[in-house]
């Protein structure tokens, strides 16, 4: 491998790493998909549960219970199954950090 192609590989790795892992706003972006019902940044405008400031572990447990069916739901059992564990973790962390 010559120097030029080695540099190209390094650059590609850098770009991919940046886009995949280092965007600091992935949790924010994912949590925003919940805001239609639960309010901007998880602060409900009424009639739905607020998620802002809830402990992360509590939120994760709730979503796990919706997924497994342990906690009955009208719709959340269907929605939580659409997200990966990593995504739910990021979402719960984002809401937990909201005041």
């Amino acid at each position, binding site marked *: 491998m010559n120097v030029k192609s080695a540099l190209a590989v390094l650059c590609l790795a850098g770009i991919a790493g940046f886009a995949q892992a280092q965007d600091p706003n992935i949790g924010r972006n994912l949590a925003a998909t919940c805001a239609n*019902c639960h309010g901007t940044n998880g602060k409900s*405008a009424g009639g739905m549960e607020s998620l802002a400031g809830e402990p992360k572990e509590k939120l994760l447990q709730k979503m796990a219970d919706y997924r497994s069916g342990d906690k009955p739901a009208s719709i959340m059992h269907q929605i939580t199954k659409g997200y990966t564990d990593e995504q739910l973790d990021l979402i719960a962390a984002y809401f937990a950090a909201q005041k």
Partner: protein
Amino acid sequence: MLNRRDFLKSAGAVAAGSSLVGLSGCAGMGKGSGGHVVVVGGGYGGATVAKYLRMWSNGSVNVTLIERNTTFISCPMSNLVIGGVKQMQDITVSYDNLKSKWGVRVITDEVLSVDAAKRTVTTAANGTIAYDRVVLSPGVDFMTDSIAGLSGNEELIPHAWKAGPQTILLRKQLEDMKDGGVFAIQIPKAPYRCPPGPYERACVIANYLRQTKPKSKVLVLDANPEITSKKGLFTKAFDSYKGMIEYRPNSELRAVDAKTRTAELEFDKIKTDVLNVIPPMRAGDIATTSGLPLINNRWVDIDWITYEAKGVPGVHVIGDALFPAPTMPKSGHMANQHGKVVAAAILNLLAGEAPYAAPVVMNTCYSFVDDKNVIHVASVHQYDAEKKQPMPVAGAGGVSAAANEIEGKFALAWAQNIWADMLS
């Protein structure tokens, strides 16, 4: 033409009477460090982009929202106005908070053209406005000419598929209809805005007629071969209005006679008392006249990471105007979700960073089957790097087990929360 100084003046005037967010935004604007985004259309998609760009940039990105109407009137929930359950004021929201709380410059105007090379939009009343990036959220426009006799007669034969005066018109016609009258609704072939909406409308109108004019008929003339959304649940709902609702699949309208409110199908002519024709539709005119790439000559073809029209850098398109990804509905909820993906992508691009490469969107749609009971459909769509578009997650999403009152309350709370998410 609005020049930069005028813009800063008006933006400053907005910030002067506003909260801290507006003021901090003003400081950023003075330096012009964050860039200027023009958003065309203040519906579910456009209003969301405008607010989220301001919120997520801490006011450092300037946002101009150009919208024809002076207030936001919601299509979701407008069937309840038509069914006599809600009033227009219940589905109308002001743009004031976007201006005062978020520092969005809101202009009541119409965009006539977009020049992607020069990065400008030309408006009817405010001249030419320059942008760093533009977001088009134009919704749909109707292909009225595809049904003979319809064009120019939209007051006699309302669509009521854009909420506003048309909503009031259809409500008035139903109020004026005699007991024993025939109400007919034409549903266009998919894809169209709000797949379950026409079936919901048939139900809430039947609910109204059953209480007030029980000899009347509701005729559902569906151009599609079957109910296009929540089929099992709507079939049950229609059964609960037995003798009143009649559902006819494969019933595409060829022509109408406006004077007699007659609907002409291929082999049938039906005389009605109130005729509600939802015409075939396509992306809003600004998308189709701006030279953007279209699929089937109707819907905009986009890159699903940045939502830029394919081959047109800097021009992002969201909402109902898009050629939909598989099973992705044209809904207000989905447009709001697109708006957040685009806001995040634009902020990264303005900062010279790569946009998030795996955006997620989801949809929830509640439909009333009477004045209290509701059914939902939900889905989650994850970006598929191989297919280069969002795909529905298998095993996720679904519909209600049965119509129920609890979801009736959730539906109203959904509206309150999504309107606040866009506009408060």
